[in-house]
């Protein structure tokens, strides 16, 4: 019998569970990081193995930094999971500022008892999303809380990017006469989650739209158009996002309901639950406010990108002292599209 002084029994990813020692800072935590997180995320910055990542300072432009917490329930849903969602969400927050996303940081809050197999699946999905987006996860943190103090796993991500000189996107730049463009159908993410959550029993064909939008945005910026505002309409949906822009810009908006794309399954599910797709969350869509003269050019660039195939011109910015977002209904009347009231569905992202 020989003693192997360096031997550490590998993590039992198949059947093991997170326990409090995985957040203790001791050997168990080091092992979890090495055998699970580092294995999936591996990159030169993470390999430095320090408390923080040392990164090259960008040569020009301005830095953008954004963070986003993810608490979605359930953790796995058609079209994605909390892992890829936490990568896409923060990349999109950086990208809608006009920035090229460079690096991500990820912080995990794990509940004691959470299956390591699920964690492995989530981390693999994050790593794949980060790889596809070309944005590495360069540093991170793990904490474990007692059972019942958190629901499975919460993931908070932070992203850093650089805005090229000459690009100036901001919520207060919408001007009367500008055109409002939407990159695709509304409500896919929210209804995909809702269909699982509410045990509605309809076998839904609805798939979350979770996606990283920086490629689409790059194509839009490449047109050289005067892009004034970009936003990703997540919680609260398009209605809430447009109200935010209207308030920041001190203008009103007039939408054309007939021009707003909604998948028929999503429309039917919304109808069934009494929801309005305008208020349902999206995770892979953007809304753009563009100078009218550039609108067609930007729209063409959006439609040429896979994530913008169903892009549409949905309305325009108007003068309005009340900063109302209004809409001509498909029926021929007019209504306000107000802020979301209350909570439509907690823990959607």
């Amino acid at each position: 019998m020989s003693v192997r002084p360096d031997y550490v029994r590998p993590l039992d990813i198949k059947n093991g569970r997170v326990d409090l020692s995985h957040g203790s800072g001791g050997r168990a935590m080091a092992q979890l990081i090495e055998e699970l997180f580092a294995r999936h995320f591996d990159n030169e910055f993470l390999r430095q193995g320090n408390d923080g990542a040392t990164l090259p300072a960008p040569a020009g432009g301005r830095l953008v930094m954004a963070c986003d917490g993810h608490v979605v329930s359930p953790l796995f849903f058609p079209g994605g999971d909390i892992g890829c969602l936490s990568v896409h969400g923060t990349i999109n927050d950086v990208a809608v500022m006009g920035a090229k996303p460079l690096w991500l940081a990820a912080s995990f809050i794990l509940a004691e008892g959470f299956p390591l197999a699920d964690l492995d699946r989530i981390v693999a999905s994050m790593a794949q999303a980060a790889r596809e987006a070309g944005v590495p996860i360069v540093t991170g943190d793990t904490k474990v809380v007692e059972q019942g103090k958190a629901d499975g796993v919460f993931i908070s991500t932070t992203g850093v990017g650089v805005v090229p000189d000459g690009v100036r996107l901001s919520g207060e730049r919408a001007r009367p006469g500008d055109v409002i463009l939407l990159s695709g159908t509304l409500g896919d993410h929210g209804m995909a989650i809702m269909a699982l959550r509410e045990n509605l029993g309809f076998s839904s064909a609805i798939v979350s739209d979770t996606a990283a939008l920086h490629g689409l945005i790059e194509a839009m910026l490449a047109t050289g158009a005067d892009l004034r505002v970009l936003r990703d309409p997540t919680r609260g949906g398009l209605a809430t996002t447009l109200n935010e822009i209207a308030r920041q810009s001190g203008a009103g908006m007039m939408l054309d309901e007939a021009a707003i794309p909604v998948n028929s399954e999503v429309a039917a599910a919304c109808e069934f639950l009494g929801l309005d797709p305008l208020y349902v969350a999206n995770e892979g869509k953007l809304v753009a406010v563009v100078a009218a003269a550039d609108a067609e050019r930007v729209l063409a660039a959006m439609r040429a990108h896979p994530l913008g195939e169903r892009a549409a011109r949905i309305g325009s910015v108007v003068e309005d002292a009340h900063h109302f977002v209004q809409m001509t209904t498909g029926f021929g009347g007019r209504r306000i599209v107000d802020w979301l009231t209350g909570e439509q569905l907690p823990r959607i992202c």
Partner: protein
Amino acid sequence: MKYVDEFRDGKLAQVLAGAIAAAARPEHSYSFMEFCGGHTHAISRYGVADLLPPNVRMVHGPGCPVCVLPIGRIDMAIALALEQGVTLCTYGDTLRVPASKGLSLLKAKAQGGDIRMVYSTADALRIAQENPAKHVVFLAIDFETTTPPTAVAIKQARALGLENFSVLCCHVLTPAAISNILESPEVRKLGTVPLDGFIGPAHVSTVIGSRPYEFFAAEYRKPVVIAGFEPLDVMQAVLMLVRQVNEGRAEVENEFTRAVTRDGNLKAQELVAEVFELRRAFEWRGLGLVPYSALKIRSEYASYDTEFRYALDYQSVADNRACECGAILRGVKRPQDCKLFGTVCTPDNPIGSCMVSSEGACAAHYSYGRFRVQGGSSQ
């Protein structure tokens, strides 16, 4: 969406708008009450008012389930959750109705009450089955539409031998509310509320049928047109009402023939009659105590009656003095006539119940139509 989009067609709407404008006599003004919140919502959501001529006016009625629920009933539910420790289940909008002491069910939930939003009575039953150590109360609100599912839940609970489930029954009845409005001094004597006819309920009528309205048409000489909840249904009903007024008729007509018959759903009616009986009187927000206007659980099912099990006594609580919900529910005032509307009372911070549900007259006007308020945007 097939089978729904047909009833929201903008081109057909223009055709109907033209027919209404042609039928409405310029020297006459027409006021029709849409009883149901479902119609109020459709009118606001689709901008139906923009398609009606100026001399055809819609008056919002009291048919919004959470709007007519008085403070005392919500207080009862809150006390059950906070003081008796029951698990209280109810439909979504009910959670936000303002109650006493600045509370609502949502705020009581934040204070630790086990209060849950459910989509159906089946959800509440399931919660009771999964939590045998807790008593689960289903706060049942609404008009006749949801009385059959509540009856089914009570019967199922008995069949399953569930002892930890009961219903706080606040089901109310449509015909009693219509009578109350027609008998009100504003309509009958003072004439301050001109009412030339009613758009009758859609879903309620699928259960009770069109027969119960025949009495109003005959006794009060008011035409009633039962209509579906889609905007084209509403337009068609308005046209039918204008024609009845022009021709001096006061009949019950059914625009919603795809779902409503004269006798309604007899099986559902039997079920309801088996489990419920009439209450002698019930307090409505806005209408006050209305005789024989609500249901209570029959004594045979008393063990499923929360009021019986917890020996609850109803205490009436007055509304905020400046709140005009009462007058708005009777059609006497419009939302924008209330001093609180859009100032201290908004959907995010409702003072009155009409500001809570999107079917409420105030919330519908605020959320969809407040650009029409005088001095608002003219865009």
